[in-house]
Structure formats: C-alpha cells, structure tokens
C-alpha cells in the first residue's frame, strides 16, 4: 500500500517535471546568449570582451553570459559550448580557436536550431576541413587592418620610399596577413620598396637587426611593427637614435609603451582590435536574430586606430575596461 503511494507520487513528480521542461523552449521567460572563448576573463584582453557581453545583456534586458577557461584550453571551451547547447541557448558566439573541434560543436548547435556566430578567430582561409557553418564573423580582419593602417600613413610616405616591416614571428598567419595588407597598399599607392625583416621575439636582437638595416638603408622612411613585441624595441630605437621626424612608425595592438610613444609623437598610430565590440555586437546580432530573424553579418572590429589625438582618451578607457 505504502509502496503504491510512493510510486504514484514519483510518477506525478516525473510527469510534472517533464511537461514543465518540455514547455520551456516554447515560452522562454528570458532569452539567454552565451559567448564562449578559448581563454577566460582572467586575461586582460578577454576581460574587455566580457564587459562588452555584460553591457549588451543589460542594455537589451537579456541574459548574456561570457565563459572561457582560465588559460587557453580547447577541450574546456568545447565542454562549455556543449553546456550552452544543453541549456538551449538562444544564440552562441564562439572563437574558432581550433577549427576541427570548434567546427563540430558549431555544427551540433546549428543542427539543434541554435544560431551561432564566430568571434575573434575565424575559420582560416586555407582550412581544408568541412566548412564551419557559423552565420557571421565578428572580429578583426588582419589583412584589412594592415591595409587600413598603411592608408592612414600614406600622406607621410613619399613616392618610391623604402619601408621596413618588423616581423617578430615569421610564419604566424595573422601577422603575415597584417604585413601583406601593409605591403599591398604601399606598393600600389606609393611604389614603395617594402622590406620585411625577421626581427625575432627577442627585443635586443630585434633592435640591433633594425639598426643594422637602417645603417645599410639610411633612406628608410617608414617602419611598421606588428604588435607590442615588435614595437617595444622599435620605440627604444627611435628614442635612442633620435629618429622621430625622420621615420614614421605605426603598430598593432595596445600596451603601455606604445600608447606612451603615441602621446609623445614617436609613433603615429596603432591598430586597436576593439574587442569590446566582439562581445557587445555578437550579443546584439544574436538578439536581433532571435527576435526578428535578422541575419547576422560580418563585422570587422579592427578599424580602430589610436592616434595622438585619441591616445589619452583611449588610455583612460583602457583603465575603465572598454579598450
């Protein structure tokens, strides 16, 4: 008798729970969006993305969650994405840090009807695997960013000038794309002779390599570095050899040394990836898709240039966590 009551109660409870969960997706109380990266908010770069995600959630009145492992960890990222699929996310934004692994997760999500956009890292142009079905890419286009910064410096580069690109990591696909963008614009617009130097990640080697190059090519008019690792020794050289005014310089990404040099006028500009947008815009696009079926579109966040005029503002925005 007792046993019969227990079974009956359990059955009622089970049926009740099942019918409740079954009803959930049909009438969601609040849309929830997941932004999943290969590194977590402990990294200062991703902390900015995290803020973008949170702010978008607040503005739109939806649940927007940023997730990422403490340090670069693809399996952990995959697990987080699987959890988001199980939680029936209204949309997922994910960095394609590992095309085969992340590609499979994206396919599974799309198969269950969950919209997915890529952020920060997209499917490589020469990827041989099955095409990854994300709906749009919101992040920096390295090649376009290279063209953009080269165009910005054009007025200061004379016809037929010699230009040096400091490549601190030869073979790095992103850096090579940046360099290609710069080279194409300068050769097309100025007939410039662009030399790419393997300066290594070692700053002392980098500095003496560049100095040796300038000694052999004293008519060099512009210098491009592709990130802080190239910029730090280049800025040191410009200071020491008093090259400001003789050589114009531009760089990529932001660190304390580069921003300081821009404020002093030693560096003309640096490309800002504007990763806040990668968090904010991805949530906005996924929201608009969930609400009004508007198709997400590619968004190049790498159009931002930090110049002498904006350096001080940007610096305070860095402190506030927006840049």
């Amino acid at each position, binding site marked *: 008798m007792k046993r019969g009551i227990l079974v009956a109660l359990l059955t009622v409870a089970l049926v009740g729970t099942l019918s409740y969960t079954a009803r959930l997706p049909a009438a969601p109380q609040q849309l929830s969006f997941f932004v999943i990266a290969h590194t977590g908010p402990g990294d200062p770069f991703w902390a900015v993305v995290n803020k973008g995600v949170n702010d978008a959630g607040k503005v739109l009145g939806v649940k927007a969650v940023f997730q990422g492992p403490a340090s670069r960890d693809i399996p952990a990222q995959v697990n987080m994405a699987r959890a988001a699929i199980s939680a029936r996310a209204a949309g997922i934004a994910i960095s394609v840090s590992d095309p085969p692994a992340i590609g499979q997760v994206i396919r599974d999500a799309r198969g269950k009807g969950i919209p997915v956009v890529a952020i920060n890292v997209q499917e490589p142009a020469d990827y041989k695997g099955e095409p990854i079905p994300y709906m749009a890419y919101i992040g920096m286009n390295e090649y376009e960013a290279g063209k953009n910064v080269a165009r910005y410096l054009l007025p200061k580069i004379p016809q037929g000038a010699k230009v040096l690109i400091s490549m601190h990591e030869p073979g790095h696909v992103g850096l090579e794309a940046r360099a290609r963008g710069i080279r194409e614009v300068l050769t097309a617009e100025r007939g410039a002779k662009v030399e790419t130097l393997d300066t290594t990640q*070692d700053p002392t080697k980098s500095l003496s390599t560049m100095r040796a190059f300038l000694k052999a090519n004293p008519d060099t008019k512009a210098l491009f570095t592709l990130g802080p690792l190239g910029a730090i020794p280049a800025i040191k050289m410009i200071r020491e050899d008093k090259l400001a005014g003789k050589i114009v310089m531009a760089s990529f990404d932001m660190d304390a040394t580069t921003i300081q040099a821009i404020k002093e006028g030693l560096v003309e500009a640096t490309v800002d990836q504007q990763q806040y947008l990668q968090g904010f815009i991805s949530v906005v696009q996924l929201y608009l898709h969930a609400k009004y079926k508007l198709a997400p579109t590619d968004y190049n966040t790498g159009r931002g240039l930090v110049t002498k005029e904006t350096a001080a503002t940007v610096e305070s925005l860095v402190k506030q966590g927006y840049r």
Partner: protein
Amino acid sequence: MRDVGDKAISGGAEAKAVKMLPAAPPERWRRLLAIRELGVLIALIALIVIFTFLQPAFLTLDTFGDILTQAAELGVAAVGVTFLMIAGEFDLSVGSTFAFAGVLLALLVTRFSVSPFLAVPAALLFAGVIGLLNGLITLATRIPSFITTLGTMMMWRGLALAITGGWPISILTASTLLDVLGGRAVYSTLRISALWLLIVTAVFWALLGKTAYGNWVFATGGKREAARALGVPVNRVKLINFSVAGVLAGTAGFLQFGRMSSMSPVWGDALALEAIAAAVIGGTSLMGGSGTIVGTILGAITMASIRVGLVMVGAPSYWYTAFLGVVIVLAVILNVKLEETFAWRR
C-alpha cells in the same frame, strides 16, 4: 687560456706530460694551436672579414656596440650554461628562468613598489633557487638534467605567462635601476650591459681556471668515478653549478629588462639552445669535462655578428636563421677537426 684547457683534460695534475708527445710541432706553433678558442676565433675573424668586404660600414664602433649588447645578454646566460655543461649537466630552462626572474623583478618594482636594493637580490635569489631545484630533482631522482629542465622550462614559462596575463610589464619613466642594468650608453652604441658581461666573464674565467673549485668542475664533468675517488664532492659541485646557471640566467633577464624598460613573459624563448650553441661554437664539449668561458663569449659574439652582418649586407631576411644554423655546424666541425689534427693538445 691554455692552462685552463690543459687542466680541463688532465685535471691539472699532469699538464707537463703534454710536452713529451712526439708529434708536437715547434714550441711557437704549439702555443698558438693549443689555444682552445682557436676554432671560434678563426670563424669570427673570417666572418668579420667577409662582412666588412661586402659592407664596409660593418667595421665601425657603432656596429660593434650593437653586437656586443646583443652578445651580452646571451653571453651572461651562456657562461652559466657553460659552467654547468663542463660539469656534465644541461639546463634547458635558462630561457624561462630569464623570463620569470625578469618578470618577478619588474613586478616587484612596479606593482609592489619594492626598493630595487631589495628587489634585485630577491629576484636573483629566486633565480638561484630555480637552478638549485633543477639540480635537486636531477640528482635525487637520477633523471637526466635534459629532461628535468625540459619540464621546468615549460613550468616557469607558464607561470611567467600566468602571472602577467601575457602582457609586458613596462617602466615608462626614467629609472636609475634600468640605467644601471643596461640602459645607458657608455659610448656610442656601447651599453652598460657590455660591462656586466666583462665582469661576469672575468669572475668565471678566474673561478674556472685559477681556483681549486675550477678543477673540481672539470673533474666532475670528466671522469666522475675518478673524481669521487679523488675526493671531489661531485653532487655539491653540480648543485652549485645548477644554481649558478639560474642566477646568471636571471641576471641576463635583468639586463634585457634594463635595455628595453619592459619585460615580456615570452622573452628568452630561444635562449637555452642559443646559449648551448654559443658554448659549443666556443669549444665546450657536450659530453662535459672540457670547455672555456672565453670561448663561449666569443661564440656569443659570433652569433650576434652573423645576425647583424647578414642584415647589413642585405641578405634576404627569412634566411638568417638557416644561415646561422649552417655556421653553427661549420664552427663545431672546425673545432672537432682542430682537436683531431692537434690531438697532442689533449
């Protein structure tokens, strides 16, 4: 230098026996050829002649200052590595120690506003402990130091990345600490770091060639059982040398921090293999038991000269590393051939 080499082989006891070998050429030649650094010296002079011929601007004080600055950071770390290699052990983690100690110093003086008088010794001590730890693990577990330090290389690099989040730590204002470490130019492109290199070279050259401890180091790396029988505290010598390698790697990191006013957790990633290359080009044996400090410094200068020289003569940039590799192999072949041809040097 000849003494050092001879002692290296004979343990210092029977240096005179060399003279009795029949194949020995006349005294004057014998002296010249007995210089253990002969191979690297020939290689370096040949390179300087070739580069100057192709680009006269190569042979200027400016260029030499740059080469010496580059050689200073590599050289200081390579002296420690050589010291350890002579004792028969390797340290692949010096690049990570370089970065971790540098990052530690940078963090102490920037984020925690610790006085440099306290921060420098503290960070150096830590670098020494990293080295000591390598030694303790290697000796206690009897795994080859090559493997121990391969592991600790990843560990300390990872920790440096973790505590900085991957970003460089910079000092943006004028700083006496940075100037003393390697910031200020002494003359033209010559920097303080070259002075530090000179000091480190002199100290360790004397330690290795002029003291009983130096003989212990050679004996430890040569015939270990014989060394033990002679009463050389083999394990203690190794532990000391592991610590020395750590301290000098940290010092090199400080020099780079001083040079750049910044310290990035990714710097020094090629240091371990370059230091071993500098030592080997300079005539240090991979088997332990022989090697010289001056040879290593010349090896470091050779490597720096190649990089600067190739840029100045306008060689295509992506070929540098390949060329460097060829020169390393050639220099070692030269060393081995000299060693064989003039076997009486042993």
